[in-house]
């Protein structure tokens, strides 16, 4: 499976946030989007998820698996945005089992997923009672309870301590080895072995387009 973008441009209102952006991600690969604040990292992820229309260019999914032909790209991705998408008055278990039922394609069960993020035993605690880092880890557990090949991660490690970050790196690595794909927007290294990096520049819309030479491979230890 491969997702490729050709010369895409995305606007918010009248402002073109970025244009002439091309990239490709295949099974088992991670793409890390970096750039200054306001460079359009989140906007890119939201455009891939289909929340923002493309002003130009194409976003194509090439897949030889007949099961997923005709399935829109949005149904193949998990989005971990700045908000955790959990209801504070409901317990961790209620929140996660809701997303599992709702999202379909169940993957891990809730106890297992919580175990992976190191929070097993918190099933019956209302989500609102958790700390910021714990909430983030519950939101990460949501990625595990139902299966999606593509993970769109927007600053996934915000609020996580060093140990949880390492745990999350291992989770992402496991997802990649499980034929997954990751597109992440971040400022901090994610600790993945093999990543492709694109840098979005922050500049006025009138200036030159992002050169595809900004795309490069990087090895992060």
């Amino acid at each position, binding site marked *: 499976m491969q997702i490729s973008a050709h010369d895409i441009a995305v606007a918010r209102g009248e402002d073109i946030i970025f244009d002439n952006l091309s990239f490709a991600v295949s099974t088992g690969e991670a793409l890390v989007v970096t750039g200054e604040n306001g460079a359009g990292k989140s906007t890119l992820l939201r455009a891939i998820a289909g929340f923002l229309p493309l002003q130009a260019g194409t976003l194509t999914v090439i897949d030889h698996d007949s099961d997923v032909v005709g399935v829109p790209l949005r149904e193949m991705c998990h989005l971990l*945005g700045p908000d955790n998408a959990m209801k504070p008055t*409901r317990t961790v278990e209620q929140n996660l089992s809701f*997303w599992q039922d*709702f999202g379909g394609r169940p993957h891990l069960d809730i106890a297992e997923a919580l175990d992976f993020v190191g929070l097993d035993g918190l099933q019956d605690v209302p989500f609102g009672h958790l700390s910021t880092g714990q909430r983030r880890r519950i939101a990460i557990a949501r990625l595990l309870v139902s299966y999606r090949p593509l993970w769109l991660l927007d600053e996934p490690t915000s609020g996580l301590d060093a140990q949880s970050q390492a745990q999350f790196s291992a989770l992402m690595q496991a997802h990649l080895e499980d034929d997954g794909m990751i597109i992440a927007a971040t400022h901090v290294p994610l600790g993945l072995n093999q990543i492709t990096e694109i840098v979005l520049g922050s500049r006025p819309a009138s200036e030159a387009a992002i050169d595809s030479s900004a795309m490069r491979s990087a090895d992060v230890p």
Partner: protein
Amino acid sequence: MISLLKRDLALSLGQGGSGATVLLFYLAVVVAMPFAIGPDKQLLATIGGATLWIGALLASLLGLDRLFRDDAEDGSLDQMLLAPVPLGAQVFAKALAHWLTTGLPVTLAAPIFALFLSMPADAWLATMATLAVGTPALSFIGAAGAALTVTLARGGLLLAVLVLPLCLPVLIFGVGAVRAAVTEPDPFLPPFLLVAALSLFFAVLGPLAAAYALRQTEL
């Protein structure tokens, strides 16, 4: 879809939910009326059906702007848009949950509140019947309005302006049916069936319109 309905019901009935607020608001409207009109039993009974209907309309508008806003603010709406469940069905489930926590309690409470207005038995029975078939229309129309205003900071105000004109036919025929039930030659059935038709019509159109609006919204 069932799980979304269950979650929304649990949220609105649970801690911090709007379940009891609706009934209290309804009670306030209905109780204030006799004080404003004066203790004229005849007059109160005549306008009783209209009072109960206006109370129901206002109660269903109350909290309508939270229908999608809460989900938009905590990121749940993003996940709902990505889910493989058809968006129209999701909106239907949310509107149904809204009705079960506003329209249904208002309908069930109507006989009790009718006592405050000294309404005769056939009048409150007719009111209850029209509320039962008419209030779903208010929730489904409201869902479309709530979807349109989800990203607006002062959406609640605009929402009322958008939704109210569409709700007025329901109110007109609902109150018309109640009046027809108590005044002799007028038939009760035609306006009552029109109210039912409006509910069925908006049960289809409302969720589809709301789903379209949500897809077009640049979140």
